[in-house]
């Protein structure tokens, strides 16, 4: 068998083209020069040059989450790979399909502490779904295909392929074609029909059911979000969502109770606490959702749909586990449920809704806006109002602004909301917005930022300008690492140790320095104007929105409390929870 010979670098590029890759986010260096040379020779794949490798991974995540396609990253050995680690860990915790190609020193130098050598597969073993060190150019093509299969199937996640420089240069005629059949890895997508039947039986007897949905619905794809809408509307039951799941169900629908968890709504957390049957769809009972575990929804029967069996019974015991892909399972479930309703009639949840409406009346997101200081909630409400008719995508950084964004922005569709949920990575939002904008060049892409977080990947202004990306950075500038300050207020006697954002840059001048546009706003009456100016300006814009410095994000389930023990805005007197300081 003597086909045409290709270099390892060409094999990688050809495999990526075969796999439908259109964009790579990367940064060059010695150990990937052959690959960059191969990129130079072709025009099928676009390379986006970031300013820091961490940003390359976040951009790939933004690209992936907003399109449903995997994101691809290319970085050099040693520092290139180690800089990517935070991004990989972020993708791991939020189950985002990312393929990260890393250069490595030549095979004969591995293990010798060569220049820019790092044990990349060793370092990334814990923060990837899987990783490969390819020592043989003959299996390179097959490995790239396998990496894509592993990253995108089952529970998605990041995969690293570490390619020594000589393997990029050696030639081979072995090229992989067609489907990957992995020897040991074969994720299940169909759920066990008997378990689904049992779930329907439980649900058809429920008087106070609730859907608790998460990022798994979005990862499963548009069909899952569609089926979720159908099944929720067919049953008439309430639904709440995790941070990662927002948009899978339309926020404007009256059955939607808003986000649940530490900064979730009063109605969502109470309904979760009081329900008699909980159906968890593609969520994982994260500690930000459950609060104190032994007090989590104590009287409910629990059904859990998850593609990852290890997520089931990990922290919360469930009664009906269903391992499978959300769309497949919901499809079967909807059929069985319809049949059950034909037979036994539909349960009425009227009493349940009466109760839920009472919780809703607490109006837990209430805040008061004065004439002279902008409340962060107000700024977000205006942002929501003025962008709702637009084709808009939101990303966030991490902190109070992120939680307010989750509370006040209203997502009607999946894939429109990109945030770092599991890892909580400051510096995620701006590069993620770059990835989103690359995938959706004509859409409005807004990074809701904090003045501290935005500085963690601020160098990406260069990337945005280079590629003419009109990303909008909307900074809720409270001059504090607000979320840290809030915890210090609650758990550490208001001793604001190192949480003041001192020596802030002039964000307007900074935007200008790179070639963008800056807007500063500090009066409530000017907020609308600033937002309109931001949207009407072509190209990159930073809005420095000066907000109330000491606002706290409520409702809040303090760390260590039960999930129905929320602090609400009007009870501003802050209770300290015993042991709260020791918890995360």
């Amino acid at each position, binding site marked *: 068998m003597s086909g045409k010979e290709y270099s390892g670098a060409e094999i990688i590029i050809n495999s990526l083209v075969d796999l439908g890759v259109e964009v790579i986010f990367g940064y060059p260096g010695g150990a990937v020069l052959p690959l960059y040379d191969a990129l130079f020779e072709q025009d099928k794949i676009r390379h986006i040059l970031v300013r820091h490798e961490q940003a390359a991974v976040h951009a790939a995540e933004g690209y992936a989450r907003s399109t449903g396609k995997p994101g691809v990253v290319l970085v050099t050995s040693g520092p290139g790979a180690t800089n990517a680690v935070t991004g990989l860990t972020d993708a791991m915790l939020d189950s985002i399909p990312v393929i990260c190609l890393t250069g490595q020193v030549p095979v004969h130098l591995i293990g010798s502490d060569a220049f820019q050598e790092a044990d990349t597969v060793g370092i990334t073993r814990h923060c990837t779904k899987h990783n490969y060190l390819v020592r043989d150019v003959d299996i390179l093509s097959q490995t790239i295909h396998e990496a894509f299969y592993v990253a995108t199937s089952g529970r998605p996640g990041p995969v690293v392929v570490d390619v020594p420089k000589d393997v990029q240069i050696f030639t081979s005629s072995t090229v992989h074609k067609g489907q990957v059949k992995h*020897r*040991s*890895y074969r994720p299940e997508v169909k759920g066990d029909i008997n378990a689904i039947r049992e779930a329907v039986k439980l649900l058809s007897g429920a008087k106070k059911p609730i859907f608790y949905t998460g990022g798994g619905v979005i990862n499963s794809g548009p069909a899952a979000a569609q089926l979720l809408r159908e099944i929720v509307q067919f049953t008439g039951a309430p639904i709440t969502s995790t941070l990662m799941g927002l948009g899978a169900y339309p926020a404007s629908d009256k059955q939607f109770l808003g986000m649940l968890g530490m900064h979730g709504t009063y109605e969502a957390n109470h309904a979760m606490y009081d329900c008699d049957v909980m159906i968890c769809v593609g969520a994982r009972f994260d500690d930000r959702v459950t609060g104190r575990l*032994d*007090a989590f929804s*104590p009287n409910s029967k629990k059904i859990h749909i998850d593609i990852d*069996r290890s997520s089931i*019974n990990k922290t919360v015991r469930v009664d009906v586990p269903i391992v499978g892909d959300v769309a497949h399972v919901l499809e079967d479930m909807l059929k069985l449920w319809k049949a059950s309703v034909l037979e036994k009639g539909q349960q009425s949840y009227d009493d349940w809704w009466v109760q839920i409406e009472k919780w809703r009346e607490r109006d837990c997101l209430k805040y008061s806006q004065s004439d002279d200081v902008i409340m962060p909630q107000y700024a977000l409400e205006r942002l929501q109002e003025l962008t709702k008719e637009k084709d808009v995508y939101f990303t966030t950084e991490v902190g109070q602004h992120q939680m307010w964004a989750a509370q006040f922005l209203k997502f009607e569709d999946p894939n429109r909301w990109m945030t770092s949920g599991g890892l909580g990575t400051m510096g995620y939002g701006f590069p993620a917005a770059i990835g989103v904008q690359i995938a959706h060049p004509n859409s409005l892409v807004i990074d809701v930022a904090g003045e501290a977080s935005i500085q963690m990947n601020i160098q990406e202004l260069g990337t945005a300008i280079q590629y003419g990306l009109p990303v909008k950075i909307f900074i809720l500038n409270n001059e504090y690492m607000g979320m840290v300050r809030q915890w210090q207020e609650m758990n550490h006697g208001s001793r604001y140790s190192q949480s003041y954002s001192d020596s802030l840059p002039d964000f307007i001048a900074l935007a200008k320095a790179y070639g963008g546009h800056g807007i500063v706003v500090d009066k409530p009456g000017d907020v609308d104007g600033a937002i309109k100016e931001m949207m009407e300006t072509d190209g990159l814009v930073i809005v420095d929105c000066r907000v109330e410095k000491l606002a706290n994000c409520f409702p809040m389930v303090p760390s260590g409390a*039960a999930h129905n023990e929320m602090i609400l805005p009007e009870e501003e007197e802050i209770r300290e929870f015993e042991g709260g300081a020791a918890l995360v």
Partner: protein
Amino acid sequence: MYHTHKEIEIAARHTFSIIVDNEAGVLARVIGLFSGRGYNIEHLTVAPVDLQGSESRITVVTTGTPHVIEQIQAQLDRLVPVHKVGDLTASGPHIERELALIKVHCQNEKQQAALRIAEAFRAKIVDSSFESYIFEVTGKTDKIRAFIRLMEDVGLVEAVRTGVAALTRGAQPL
């Protein structure tokens, strides 16, 4: 009002059999999972088990509550190069053996004692000098422990154990 209906779970010893692709780093993945998630490893054995050497079998003895044991199995199953995971302790009757080499320093009447104990345990002498023996003994963990314990009184110098190898009883594979 606090609800404290925490089930009191008792930790028990479980033996896992794991069939893996014999690729670089696979053992690090399995061990890393145990250390990263705070599970403990009491015994670990690993070697290729097919003629081509493409598959290895890892046996791990661990302790955990039923909840932890269920998680260990699910987490192992999720690793990409893992073909099959079996909890032998949960799946019924199975055989467990380990092999140990035990070096004993002894003279005169202690020598007689060493030989007597070795005979009772069906240990083989695999090395001897004027004043020492190395015994090879196989059996269940309890037996190996008992043997080492007795040899302490005789003059134990050092011991090495392979860790547990285990298979389910009957005709079926894992």
